[in-house]
């Protein structure tokens, strides 16, 4: 796909922003700064989603990650530190080994990408397969991004959708049970 200069400018800007904030997340000694830069990583990733045309996903990313997960981590940070203070210093250990493992992973991924053979998923032709009408369609001018999500969630991905709702229920009940003060009912 051809992309113009503005697209590439935004892409390099946002990816530099994301990587910079990610490095601060993994190296900052103060837990609270770590959290705020993680929030910036989430916003940067939402920007990258926008650049690929995943508009609804960018909205969901901001809503759930920066709005929900960040607040969750915030409460966890506050409930496990002293009330007034800058957060416990996090002394890192084994930095060298960490860099080696991360670099090995990166080299492995580059080797994989440079030699990858692409297996495309099967296309469901309407005259061959009876499931073609239930396959998730792409957003078009007739059906926007949000509608495509809705249609896909209720046709091709109905079972994962129901499973995920049960999973969320289990997570809520489990979190309340685990974090409850003992002695109360």
């Amino acid at each position, binding site marked *: 796909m051809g992309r113009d200069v503005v697209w590439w400018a935004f892409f390099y800007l946002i990816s530099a922003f994301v990587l910079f904030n990610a490095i601060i997340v993994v190296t900052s000694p103060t837990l609270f*700064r770590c959290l*705020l830069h993680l929030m910036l990583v989430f916003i940067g990733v939402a920007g990258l989603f926008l650049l690929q045309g995943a508009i609804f996903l960018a909205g969901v990313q901001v809503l759930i990650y920066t709005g929900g997960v960040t607040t969750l981590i915030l*409460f966890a940070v506050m409930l496990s530190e002293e009330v007034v203070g800058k957060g416990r210093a996090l002394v890192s250990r084994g930095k060298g080994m960490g860099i080696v493992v991360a670099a090995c992973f990166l080299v492995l991924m580059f080797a994989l990408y440079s030699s990858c053979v692409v297996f495309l998923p099967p296309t469901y032709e309407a005259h061959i397969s009876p499931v073609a009408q239930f396959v998730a369609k792409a957003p078009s001018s007739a059906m926007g991004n949000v509608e495509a999500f809705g249609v896909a969630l209720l046709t091709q991905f109905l079972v994962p959708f129901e499973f995920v709702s049960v999973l969320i229920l289990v997570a809520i009940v489990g979190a309340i049970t685990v974090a409850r003060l003992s002695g109360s009912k």
Partner: protein
Amino acid sequence: MYGFSLSSFCERFLKWTKLPTDLLVGVIVAVFIFFFMTFVVLALVYLFRKFVGFVQVRLGPRYVGPRGLLQTVCDALKLLAKEDIMPENADKGVFIAAPLIVFLPAYLVYIVIPFGHPSHFQPKDLNLGILYVLAITSITVIGIVSAGWASGSKWATIGGMRSAAQLISYEVPMSLSVIVPVLVSGSLSMKEIAQAQGDRFWHWNFFNLNYFGLTFPAFIIYMICALAETNQIPFDLPEAESELVAGYNVEYSGMRFAFFFLAEFSNLFVVCAIATTLFLGGWHAPFPFLPSEGLWSVLWFMLKTWTLTFVALWIRATYPRVRIDQLMEFAWKRLFLVALIDVAVVSLIAATS
């Protein structure tokens, strides 16, 4: 009048000067929104002080400018001229960043509000308008808690945590009550939701006769949650002067406090504007024979929004404060239940008709 808009004027001007149009149009619209927001806050603070004075049987500001109209401008100048104090225990970076994190959502939401009918009155109509609004307003929580945490004082931290608990508790019934207009109009886009409500006030979402008036609880729940989300009385425990020595912004002074103040009043206006779009028919006139195109649509929109703001200020002048446990119980046990039942009933009616 219909062919003119700020964006098209900018585009023609920029084509004439051969600069890149898309980015610069965005910049000009952003600056315009900033000035509009400042003007709205100025008007709102003045209205607030005069009206609260009237309710309390006294006159509000009188001396600065004719009838006290310049009072807010002088207050802003006073705040700008104050000394910038930073507490010793404060986490400097977060202390400086927190007002920004609170201010940005209040500023960014103006992009999707449809102020009038021909679409150049709405800076940008996003496909996921209301989802964008919900996402952006959930960032305010982090700013408020960061402000409380970074101040380095116990009062501020506890105020910040209470505020976070209140905000996230009231986000849930608000999201549920927002689903009701989305169900009724079938789209997340603010323009579509306002458009689908039509010219007749008995089809507006606050009491929709097509749905036998069952969308009314959603409107009430949205207004209550909107007051809670913007830290207005009766939900202003986090910033009450008599409860927690002004809560999360106690250590802020001068320009930083001005950011919080600006964000709070701007939030009030924005939340009433969104309620107008979702529930009161946006820019439409109440009856079909009244005009609702062009500048008339802006007039109707502003009329409805300022009426809702006026009601919010009225509540602010009248009601006492709610306690933190009463607040949480109200959100989770009452509002959440009513909102859930309302969504279920409205989706049932929407699916069978």
